[in-house]
């Protein structure tokens, strides 16, 4: 795959500059993956691209960047903004991402498009806290909406006892379709309809029950596909991610367990900085092994400090010294303490 580089041509390196930062990458690398090699702010956001899924990307248009110099040989800029996840680098290419007002403007437009028909039901959505669309709109979106019309809704369909489909939240990234194509022997769901009536659906209410179908939940950037065994159990930021493994005959068995107190509420694949599963896991690991005894615990899963998941649970509640001297503050603090204790495991 493109991001893994090409062993044959390891000696050939292409030089590309992204937002003024030079990086050398193997031929065939996309702008997105070149930016990921640099890391940090210059990495364009990706809602549909998934490095582990072949052919993904190009659809959501949030990763649009400006190519201000095509290559050393042909320095002309590209006429339009390009999808960085599907455009391969050329030697001497110069790319502008966050340094181009045009790109930021276009990205803002795309985020707005993604949100106009999104129900924004984050308070009751299981994905809240680890939702890419939430992060994206927080970073690039507007505070209010210019869309005055009724939001799009769909007829509810049941796709089985393990996975909950909320079509209204879907952004049609096609990732789950590719999971089914590439991880399971036969795909039973897909995109039906076209335009803004396009929806993820199964043929005649068929259940999605392949051994690897649960990965559809992990790749879904929004709350369109969620885990029925975790549904409404808890908010993700009240649970503790712990790395664990087991000797699984079907998959690697390397997972993240999400604890609330002693209880394992949910099992997911381990996700990297970009929210992508490191290794796909099987449904047995995901849905059926929910006892600590099933697993060998490795230790806490590191979560980005900026993530809402890390906000609540690693530190003990320690009132600052100033509170000890002030009666009014002590009273307020007691209330706060009670509330925190109710919420914390």
């Amino acid at each position, binding site marked *: 795959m493109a991001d893994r580089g090409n062993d044959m041509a390891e000696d050939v390196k292409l030089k590309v500059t992204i937002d003024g930062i030079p990086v050398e990458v193997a031929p065939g690398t996309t702008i997105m993956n070149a930016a990921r090699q640099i890391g940090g702010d210059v990495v364009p956001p990706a809602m549909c691209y998934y490095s582990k899924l072949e052919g993904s990307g190009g*659809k959501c248009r949030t990763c649009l960047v400006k190519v201000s110099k095509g290559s050393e040989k042909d320095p002309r800029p590209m006429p339009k903004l390009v*999808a960085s996840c599907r455009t391969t680098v050329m030697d001497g290419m110069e790319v502008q991402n966050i340094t181009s007002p045009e790109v930021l403007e276009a990205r803002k*437009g*795309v985020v707005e*498009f993604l949100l106009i028909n999104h129900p924004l039901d984050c308070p009751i959505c299981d994905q809240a806290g680890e939702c890419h669309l939430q992060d994206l709109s927080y970073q690039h979106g507007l505070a209010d909406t210019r869309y005055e019309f009724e939001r799009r809704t769909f007829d509810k369909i049941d796709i089985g006892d393990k996975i909950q489909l909320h079509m209204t939240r879907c*952004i049609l990234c096609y990732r789950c379709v590719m999971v089914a194509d590439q991880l399971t022997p036969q795909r039973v769901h897909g995109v039906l309809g076209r335009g803004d009536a396009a929806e993820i659906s199964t043929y005649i209410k068929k259940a999605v029950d392949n051994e690897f179908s649960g990965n559809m939940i992990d790749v879904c950037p929004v709350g369109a596909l969620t885990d029925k065994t975790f549904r409404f159990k808890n908010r993700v930021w009240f649970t503790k991610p712990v790395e664990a493994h087991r000797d699984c005959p079907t998959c690697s068995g390397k997972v993240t367990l999400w604890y609330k107190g002693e209880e394992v509420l949910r099992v997911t694949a381990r996700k990297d900085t970009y929210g992508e599963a490191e290794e796909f896991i099987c449904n047995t690991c995901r849905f059926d092994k929910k006892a600590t005894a099933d697993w060998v615990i490795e230790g806490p899963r590191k979560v980005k400090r900026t993530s809402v998941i890390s906000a609540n649970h690693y530190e003990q509640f320690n009132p600052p010294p100033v509170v000890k001297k002030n009666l009014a503050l002590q009273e307020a603090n007691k209330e706060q303490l009670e509330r925190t204790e109710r919420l914390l495991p």
Partner: protein
Amino acid sequence: MARKLLLTHIDVPGIQTFDVYRQKGGYRAVEKALKTLTPDEVVEEVKASGLRGRGGAGFPTGMKWSFLAKPEGVPRYLVCNADESEPGTFKDRYLMTHIPHALIEGMIVSSYALGANTSYIYVRGEMMPQIRILERAIAEAKNAGFLGKDILGTGYNLELYVQPGGGAYICGEETALLESLEGKRGNPRIKPPFPAVSGLYNCPTVVNNVESIAATVPIINDGGAEYAKIGVGRSTGTKLISAGGNVNKPGVYEIELGVPVEEFIYSDEYCGGIANGKRLKAVVAGGSSVPILPANLILKTLNGEPRLMTYESLADGGFQSGTMLGSGGFIAFDEDQCIVRNTWNFSRFYHHESCGQCSPCREGTGWLEKVLHNIEYGHGSSSDIDLLVNVAKNIEGNTICPLGDAAAWPVASAIRHFRDEFEWHVSHGQEAQHRNYGLAHYADPLEPVA
């Protein structure tokens, strides 16, 4: 009388049949190409003709052919795009209905030039009569030895198939067409790779419009240089224009590129003027996707030069004061027509036809349609007009395929040129329900030519 190359024998009774077509000099181009020219020489002739893609984009056909990758041991395909669905355009259907053998002959010549042994004509699903006509024509040509194995004893093999589409506008986009032809959902592919490198079944493929392919017949018969003599500058040859709207004589006309727009509208040889003695208000010159222009700008460019029916002249002034020749769907609006309603109608079409693959088009086309619906039915507000401009700008250029642009341009151009009419619709919401805005300052300033 202007020269006709494609529709010369349109009035001959029975021209649909192989025998009459052959009597009238049909299939000479196949004989000439297969027996006397090498494939590369055919490509050179087409290059010399300066023929530009007749489907809308106007990309030089010969150049497109020369980009075709030719790896050893991999089949190459020619696919004819007959998924004509652009509102206002009906030239390909006309050609296929009346002279199907012109397309078949062009397909043989073009396939020979490209080294394709299997070629497809992808016809829009709604055109069942045309599909039957083409299938009959293919059977006739096969009987006569112009298709199949060892054509005319030259050793060249060609199988030609007609594939009905499922009835989606998006399948006229070449990569969506290929997906559909492969039996998949008609979603445009992300380019690169372009079809010339990896097209149908991942093999090098050329996708051409019906008219482009048919035009190779006169090019081979008379020579590319002769064809290039017709027309103005880089717009060579003849073009089928499907004239519609409020003209006296709507229909398909074959024009030599370079006819002044004014002559095309008012001359009796073509549209014969605006119907019912009304005055011209606006023109959509190349199918619903291209920017609409008010009468004063369609007849003359901003520099005061008469506008000609050529790729360059119609695009003169960019999108500020120009438009595009597009696919040749020429729609004239008289003074009674409502631009807001028309824009809403176009928007409704693009909303319905968006494939839903990329977010700006999937969400944006619907948004445009809803806002325009509000304005048209008297529920708009003045900020809606700027909102439309902004949403159109956010769609344009940010999508996978040109459908996003095609949805954004008509809206942006209508507001650019007819903003006062939109504002009137907002401020006089009730009145706009029973009366049209009329001509106003963009009135046709010219006297009709005799």
